[in-house]
């Protein structure tokens, strides 16, 4: 039985009907990983031993007729910037090559409580900074649809592992599009939840005010299943988390107003991507939705605000990596300054250093008001424009990325070109909104195109409901044969 092709919902059904065991699901997952990893490179570590122990525990519970969690026996891959107790968590950085956290991220605790099985840790751009997964210190991950192309980033491993059917579900993190963009480029579903819906405790911080952990799956239902298991308040550990409970997907689409913001359909986005999204909106209209033209004028400035805020926070968040307490040990024979400089300069890759420099600059004396404060003001303006827009519509549809997956190495020499690939997604983080990317067709090269659906804060039920309607209307999303 090719279990690896099945969705989490299907596996869950089989397991509960006792047609398969959690150990069989895990064996199939590990075999699939063995088979396709040489071509995909999504995993930084495969944690078979710990996974098997959990699978056995689930099987024992089932054998004894005990209750099991919502994700019992389901393999869930974890982006390697999410802390796993006793399991190496590298952030794809030389800096944390050997870092073993003595604690779990709250989401990992929640997955354990839901009886999920964690088969391994997934590749990313170093410290989640990048849009192609090429900034990993260890290796680039490849796009399953064309292994000469990038899977997108920074959660490239999370997206590729799901697209390649190595796991049915995975977790990524999204600071400016890092879940949605790779979901779009790999043809899977990826949700960036409302800021505060999922605890950030144990997510190695890139930009604290924008970071949010989000689920990947091959179906909307699977993404909803995983989201339901990880969301909710974490008051003892995360002061920014909110008391939110996911009620399940909304079913009704009648009269739904779908906003089409003209700024997202401009010259920066490829014709093929625009056309695919507009076609998807047509299908929603056929299903009873009402398209509405809207405008989000500050979008033009969003990339600036995003790179200022995210880099500023990153420069401070990443200052703790100094060779003293953990991580790359640096030169320990010289002075304190030698230790600091060597640990940080040798432990971080070029993109991370670039962002630290930018962030340091925008916060430095004399520049704070001109850059950081202005960016924060703009953030308020962008959030206000969204609030106004949601008076006119219920959800907003845009392309997820300006183009489909590009070739490995194609953009590595020009940071600005790489930054521009976040253009459709950053506003959602800046405004703290939920956004989901769903596959909406292919370009002429056969590469997947993503449609981003954006809703008001804590509208995940509606957002995923709309996505589900669309999925049903198109008869499900394609899976790449490998």
């Amino acid at each position, binding site marked *: 039985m090719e279990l690896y092709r099945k969705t989490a919902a299907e596996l869950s059904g089989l397991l509960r009907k006792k047609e398969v065991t959690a150990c069989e699901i895990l064996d199939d997952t590990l075999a699939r990983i063995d088979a396709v990893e040489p071509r995909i490179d999504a995993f930084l570590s495969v944690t078979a031993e710990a996974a098997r122990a959990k699978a056995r525990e689930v099987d024992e519970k089932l054998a004894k007729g005990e209750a099991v969690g919502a994700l019992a026996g389901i393999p869930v891959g974890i982006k390697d910037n999410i802390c796993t107790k006793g399991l190496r968590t590298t952030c794809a950085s030389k800096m944390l090559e*050997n*870092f*073993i956290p*003595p604690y779990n991220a709250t989401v990992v605790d929640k997955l354990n409580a839901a009886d999920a099985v964690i088969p391994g840790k997934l590749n990313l751009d170093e410290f989640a900074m990048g849009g192609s997964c090429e900034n990993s210190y260890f290796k680039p991950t490849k796009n399953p649809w064309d292994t000469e192309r990038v899977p997108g980033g920074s959660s490239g491993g999370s997206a590729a592992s799901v697209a390649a059917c190595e796991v049915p579900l995975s977790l990524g993190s999204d600071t400016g599009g890092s879940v949605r963009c790779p979901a779009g480029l790999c043809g899977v579903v990826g949700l960036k939840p409302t800021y505060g819906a999922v605890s950030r405790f144990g997510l190695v911080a890139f930009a604290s005010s924008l970071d949010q952990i989000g689920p990947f799956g091959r179906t909307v239902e699977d993404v909803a299943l995983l989201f339901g298991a990880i969301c909710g308040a974490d*008051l*003892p550990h995360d*002061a*920014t988390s909110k008391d939110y409970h996911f009620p399940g997907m909304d079913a009704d689409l009648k009269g739904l107003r779908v906003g089409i913001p003209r700024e997202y359909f401009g010259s920066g986005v490829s014709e093929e991507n625009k056309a695919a999204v507009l076609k998807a909106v047509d299908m929603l209209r056929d299903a009873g939705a009402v398209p509405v033209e809207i405008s989000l004028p*500050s979008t*033009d*400035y969003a*990339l*600036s*605000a995003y*790179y*200022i805020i995210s880099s500023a926070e990153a*420069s401070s968040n990443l*200052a703790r990596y*100094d*060779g*003293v*307490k*953990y*991580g790359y*040990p640096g030169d*320990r024979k*010289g*002075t*304190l300054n*030698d*230790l*600091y*400089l*060597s640990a*940080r*300069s040798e432990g*971080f890759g070029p993109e991370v*250093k*670039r962002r*630290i*420099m*930018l962030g*340091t*600059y*925008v916060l*430095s004396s004399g520049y704070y*008001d001109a*850059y950081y*404060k*202005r*960016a*924060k*003001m*703009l953030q308020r*303006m962008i959030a206000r424009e969204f609030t106004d827009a949601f008076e006119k519509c219920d959800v907003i549809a845009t392309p997820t990325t300006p183009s489909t997956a590009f070739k490995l190495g194609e953009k590595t020499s020009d*940071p*600005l070109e790489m*930054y521009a690939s976040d253009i459709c997604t950053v506003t959602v983080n800046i405004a703290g909104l939920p956004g989901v990317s769903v596959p909406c067709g292919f370009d002429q090269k056969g590469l997947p195109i993503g449609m981003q659906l954006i809703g008001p804060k804590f509208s995940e039920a509606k957002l995923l409901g709309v996505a589900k309607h669309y999925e049903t209307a198109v008869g499900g999303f394609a899976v790449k044969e490998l």
Partner: protein
Amino acid sequence: MEIDVRRIAKLAMLKLPEEQVEAFEKEFASIVAMVEHLPELESADTLLEPDNQMHLRADEIVPSYPRDAMLQNVPKAIAGCIVVPKTVE
């Protein structure tokens, strides 16, 4: 626009070898030029956000971690302490 990248590197505690300064300056200037694309906005005095507040914690003890667990990732420790190069005081 002149950006003192040496000063920024010093603040960021990153090495910037002399031979790389010129190239980095150029690249950095282009990035800064990109992020400078911001409108003139009325600036608030503070960045308080009264509409988005956090929860505070009750003053209740949670057991600390075993020292071994806290030191397991430390590059160098002696007698339960973390070792750093001599600080000048």
